[in-house]
């Protein structure tokens, strides 16, 4: 059994070394305290943790009375443009794949940091109210946001559950992709990667850039049709199994509106946009059509009950947008966003 003993000991040592490196580099910003500065750059942006850190930095420079919430589809709303158009200093707190609970958690966390928003813009994705009620793992792993959610979030895991969850988080790092990301982070730390290799980057004011796509566009290598086509399966997957708007997530969204209104915050919600090609494909493969109608109805209901401003921008023609001003089938480019923003801010009461 000595051979086996050496094998297991070596394996344990190797695994421990691997995990130590992965933890130190933390290439996806998923393992340590999200608010502590890290030595190595993040190569797969965890927008929740990145934006929390940026928010704290921005707060030091003064009040932030304007807040954007939403998913990656709202992440390109430019704080500088919003500042200019509203006269309020804005922070874009939209995060990837945000759902009802993310909006509330982020809002509460921002308020707990001392923010007193006067204007809240929320880009509402239909699937943010998915009735599967599954928490995004990046929220699940974010202690401060979960704490902000409090009793409105999942019960904190105890005992074995907690241990299994922690082990699961470490186990998730034992993949080839994670190792590649770790290597990329170390490489990026040693010498900055060329622009065409950086997929996304957050500016200090929370504005999202897509350096790779911007570079491809400038070089004439950007194939929008192919990007839109590639978006279809992803969004079909997102809408898969969604039959109705989640009552639980609706409650969370309404809590956000109530809490904001109580603090005197003006709330504006718009249904976010999908490219007509993606929307058409979703209509064929999912309940998208019915869900869009339900979301429109729900937004009208929210407007009536809470006196908020609401817009249906589910299709680009609703804000005068084009079919070419896109990065893919769900993400508007700057030209379309300028139009959307103008309609959004111009249409407020």
């Amino acid at each position, binding site marked *: *059994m000595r051979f086996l003993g050496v*094998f*297991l000991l070596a*394996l344990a040592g*190797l695994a421990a070394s691997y995990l130590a490196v992965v933890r130190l580099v933390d290439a996806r910003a998923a393992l340590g305290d999200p608010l502590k500065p890290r030595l190595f750059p993040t190569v797969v942006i965890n927008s929740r943790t990145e934006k929390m850190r940026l928010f704290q930095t921005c707060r030091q420079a003064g009040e932030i009375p304007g807040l954007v919430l939403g998913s990656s589809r709202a992440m390109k709303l430019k704080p500088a443009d919003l500042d200019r158009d509203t006269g309020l200093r804005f922070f874009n707190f939209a995060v990837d794949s945000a759902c009802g609970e993310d909006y509330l958690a982020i809002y509460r966390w921002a308020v707990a940091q001392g923010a007193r928003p006067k204007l809240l813009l929320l880009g509402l994705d239909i699937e943010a109210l998915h009735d599967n009620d599954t928490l995004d793992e990046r929220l699940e792993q974010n202690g401060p946001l979960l704490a902000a959610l409090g009793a409105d979030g999942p019960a904190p895991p105890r005992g074995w559950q907690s241990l299994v969850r922690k082990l699961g988080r470490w186990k998730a790092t*034992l993949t080839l992709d994670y190792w590649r990301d770790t290597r990329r982070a170390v490489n990026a730390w040693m010498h900055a990667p060329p622009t065409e290799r950086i997929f996304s980057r957050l500016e200090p004011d929370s504005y999202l850039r897509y350096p790779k796509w911007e570079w491809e566009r400038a070089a004439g290598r950007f194939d929008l049709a192919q990007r839109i086509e590639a978006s279809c399966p992803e969004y079909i997957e997102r809408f898969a199994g969604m039959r109705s708007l989640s009552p639980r997530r609706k409650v969370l969204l309404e809590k956000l509106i109530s809490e904001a209104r109580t603090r005197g915050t003006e709330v504006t919600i718009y249904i976010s946009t999908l490219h007509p090609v993606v929307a058409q494909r979703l209509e064929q493969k999912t309940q998208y059509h019915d869900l869009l109608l339900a979301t429109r109805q729900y937004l009208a209901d929210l407007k009536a009950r809470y006196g908020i401003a609401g817009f249906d921008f589910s299709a680009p023609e609703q804000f005068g947008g084009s079919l070419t001003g896109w990065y893919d089938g769900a993400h508007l480019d700057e030209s379309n966003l300028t139009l959307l923003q103008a309609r959004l801010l111009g249409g407020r009461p």
Partner: protein
Amino acid sequence: MLFNSNIFLFLFLPVVFGLFWVLRAKAHRYLLLTVSSFIFYGWWNWKFCFLLLLSSLTSYGTAILIERAAAPARKRFWLGCTVSLDLALLGFFKYYNFFAASVRTFAPGTALPVLEIVLPIGISFYTFHTISYVVDVYAGRVRAAYSLFEYFTYVSLFSQLVAGPIVRFRQIERDLEHIDGSPQEKHMALGVGFFVVGLIKKVIVADGIASYSDPLIASYATLNMGGAWMAALGYTFQIYFDFSGYSDMAVGLGYLFGIHIPQNFDQPYQAAGPRDFWRRWHISLSSWLRDYLYIPLGGNRYGGFRTCLNLAITMLLGGLWHGANWTFVVWGGYHGVLLMVERLAGDRLAVVPLWARRAVTFVLVVISWVLFRSANLGMAWVWLQRMAGIGNGTTGAGGNLVAWVTVLLIFVNLVPDTWHWRWGTSRRWAVVYAVCFLIAYLHMNSRTSPFLYYQF
């Protein structure tokens, strides 16, 4: 439960392994291996444990009855009973719907209902285990096992239960008799070595090349000639590394419990003819078909025509054993024809240089995998047409697949089979295996894919 799953690697295997070596008594070890194997099997669907139990109990009981029976007719009766039951179970669960659908196609007026039958995993393998056992008892090649759990250990041993190798009782009888022995350092080293190399073959090589060849195969109709060949070659290597990887892992697991699982592959892509190929590919199946089907049919003892007929029957049934689909029947028939042609050609092939025989055999085998991989005969036909340059497909293979195929082509021709390796058993090698395991695990944890032969 898959060998390449966390539950197996980090819970099932360590617990069973630890308990096995803590327990000393033979009976306890039999019981442990039986119970754990049923847990392993029931992990997919516990209901099928009853089927395995029925098949095992029947063959266990009838083997004893065969041995005790004095009259040959009585022996034959019990043999007939158990083989019939085994084949009836296999026939119903695996082939009933295929039969019903085929009858509907050829005789539309006949209304045989198509049933919702879930194929019990591994049924083809353990059915062959039990049949070979009772036939061997009948023929006097082995004595019937009187220890129920010893027999259950043989039939249900988790290392070879669901995808082979098809182990015969006599091949591991001695190990089972001495299962109460102490652990041997060399066995542990071989066990870890075989298991780790098998895991690498599966999760790095087979799954790696499949990630490039599968998308190509999915668009078989639009492939150009090069793309069609690359897709076929990709699958050729995928199935080899997948199945031989599984077999290596089974062998490794066997060693960890002191059981010698027989060799299942021996550099099949270096074969110098169809017959040579079947001596090297899935050896446990081909030798089973030879010993329990081809030879009882008469083998080559009754002249050229009967030999060819026996070959055809054996290979057609061998093809059908793989699955209830006409593609497998045609695949088996194709190999049957190759074997017949080789037999008819006789010594005349000896004048062809070895490298040429190897190359031709390899190409013929690659073509056969197209039949094997295709979802139906229509797909196989179109794919083969694309390989022949017929059609106006434009999809070609990417550089990654070409690189994989090139490397593996060199590998299978130059690197000896794992059974011919001089396995390191020193502690330094334990560290090497640990590094290899970690690398394989990083690949494995990125995606979970079942072994190809689980479907058979």
